[in-house]
C-alpha cells in the first residue's frame, strides 16, 4: 500500500517535471498569462532595473531614474495613472524571459535593440541612444578614449559585451576585471586599483551622479559605440505604435530633456548630441 502511494507520488512528480520541460519548448504565444489579460484596464507591469542609480533605482517604495521617468510618461499616455504602474525588477539576464512569459507588459531597462533579441521580443523606440564610454578618476587626463587603455586595468560587469569589445577592437593589452555589478567597479576605481570602468555612457553618468561619488569620478565623454535603448515588448504586442507615439510626444514637449537633466546630468554628462534625441523607428 505504502509503496503504491509512493510510486504514484513519484510518477506524478516525474510527470510534472516532464510537463515543465515539454511546455518549455513551445513558443510563448499560446501562454495565456493571467498577467497579460488585465493590461488595458487596471494596472500595468513595467520592468525596470532596481539597482542602477540614475536610470532605474528602487529606494523603499519610490522609484527613480531616467528609465523610470520615461516609463511613467509612456504609461500615462497609454492611460495608466502613476498608481496603476507596478514596477518589477528586470535584471539583464532575465529580460527576454520576463517578456516571453508575460510577467511584464513592457521593459525600460537600458535595453539595447539587437537583432538576436528581436528574434524573441519586440521593441518600440529607441527612446535614447547611449554609447559605450569610460568612467575614470576625476583627475585622470591620460585616458581620453579606448585606445589609451593598453596596459591599463579596466572594470566591467561579468558576461557583458562592452569589455570584450575594447579588447577586441581597441586595446588588446587591456587588463580586464569583471565584477557582479558596476558599483563594485566604481569602488575599485575610486580605490585606484582599476583605471577605468566601461559600459554605456548614461549608466556611467548615473553612477557618477551619486553624492558619494561626486568629485571623484567623471565620464570621459567620447562614446565609441551606438546602443539604441528600446522599450521591450512581448513579440505579439499591439502596443508598439502607441508607445512610439508617446516617446515622440515626450521628446517634443521637453519632458524627455527634463528627465535627463533631473537624473544623470549632475555629473556634467552630456548625451551624444548627434544621435539624441533619437527618432523612434516605425513599428513592424
Amino acid at each position: 500500500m505504502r509503496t503504491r502511494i509512493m510510486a504514484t507520488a513519484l510518477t506524478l512528480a516525474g510527470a510534472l517535471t516532464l510537463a515543465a520541460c515539454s511546455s518549455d519548448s513551445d513558443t510563448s504565444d499560446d501562454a495565456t498569462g493571467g498577467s497579460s489579460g488585465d493590461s488595458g484596464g487596471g494596472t500595468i507591469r513595467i520592468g525596470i532595473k532596481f539597482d542602477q542609480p540614475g536610470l532605474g533605482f528602487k529606494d523603499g517604495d519610490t522609484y527613480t531614474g531616467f528609465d523610470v521617468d520615461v516609463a511613467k510618461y509612456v504609461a500615462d499616455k497609454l492611460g495608466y495613472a502613476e498608481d496603476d504602474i507596478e514596477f518589477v525588477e528586470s535584471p539583464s539576464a532575465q529580460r527576454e524571459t520576463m517578456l516571453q512569459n508575460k510577467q511584464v507588459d513592457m521593459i525600460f531597462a537600458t535595453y539595447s535593440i539587437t537583432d538576436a533579441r528581436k528574434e524573441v521580443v519586440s521593441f518600440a523606440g529607441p527612446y535614447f541612444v547611449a554609447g559605450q564610454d569610460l568612467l575614470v578618476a576625476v583627475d585622470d587626463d591620460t585616458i581620453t578614449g579606448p585606445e589609451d587603455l593598453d596596459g591599463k586595468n579596466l572594470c566591467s560587469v561579468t558576461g557583458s559585451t562592452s569589455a570584450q569589445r575594447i579588447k577586441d577592437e581597441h586595446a588588446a593589452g587591456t587588463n580586464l576585471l569583471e565584477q557582479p555589478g558596476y558599483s563594485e567597479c566604481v569602488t575599485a576605481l575610486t580605490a585606484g586599483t582599476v583605471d577605468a570602468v566601461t559600459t554605456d555612457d548614461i549608466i556611467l553618468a548615473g553612477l557618477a551622479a551619486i553624492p558619494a561619488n561626486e568629485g571623484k569620478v567623471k565620464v570621459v565623454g567620447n562614446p565609441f559605440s551606438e546602443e539604441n535603448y528600446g522599450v521591450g515588448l512581448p513579440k505579439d504586442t499591439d502596443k508598439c505604435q502607441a508607445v512610439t507615439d508617446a516617446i515622440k510626444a515626450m521628446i517634443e514637449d521637453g519632458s524627455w530633456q527634463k528627465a535627463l537633466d533631473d537624473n544623470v546630468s549632475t555629473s556634467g554628462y552630456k548625451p551624444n548630441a548627434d544621435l539624441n534625441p533619437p527618432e523612434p523607428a516605425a513599428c513592424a
Partner: protein
Amino acid sequence: MDDFASLFDEFDVLGAFWVNIQLTFFAAIFALVLGTVLAVMRISPVPSLRWAGTTYVTLLRNTPLTVIIVFCVLGLWGQLGITLSSDFQRNFFWLSVLGLTVYHAAFVCEALRSGVNTVPVGQAEAARAIGLGFGDSARLVILPQAFRGAVAPLGNVLIALTKNSTVAAAGSVAETSGLLKQMIEFRPDLMVAIFLVFAFGFVLIVVPIGLATTSLSRRLAVAR
C-alpha cells in the same frame, strides 16, 4: 540541433568547465590542509587555539560565499593591494582560490571533527597509555582513523566546492556561470538549451565524485 551545435563552436563551454575544475582542484587541496589544521586546533589542549578554531568556523561558515569572494578581490586586492600572481588575470584566479579555500576549510574542519567523533575513546586512551603526547596521538592514531571515517562528509564538501566554484565569477574569473550569462546575452533564443548544457555538465562532473567517495568511504571504513 544545428543551433545547439553552434553553441559549442561559438562559446568555449569546455574551457569554462575546465576553469571550474582547476579552481576546485586547488581550493580542495588548500582547504583540506587548512581544514585539518583547524580541526587539530579544535581538539587541541590549548584553550585559545580551540577558541580561535571555533571562531573561525562560526564566522566563515555563516558568511555567504559571494561576499567572501568579493572581499578577496575588492578588499584584499582592490583596497589593500595584495597580489598573488604578477599576471593580472591569474591574480584573480588565485584570489578566488583563496576565497573558496577559506570558506570550505570551515566545512572540512567540521567534516573532520565528525570523523574524529567516529574514533572510539579507547583508541585515544590506548595512545596515551603507551606514552604518546597530544601531537603524536593525533598524528599517528586519531587523524588517520578520522580521515577514513570522514570520507563521506569530505566527499560532500568536495561536491559542494565543485558547484560553488561557479561563484568565482564574482571574482573576475572567466568560468561557467560567467559564460552562462554571456551566452544568454548573445543567444536569448537558445536559453533552454543553454541551461540544459550547463545542468548536465555539472551532473557529469559531480555524480562521479559522489559515487567515488561513497565507494571509497565503504572501502576505507574502519571495521568496528
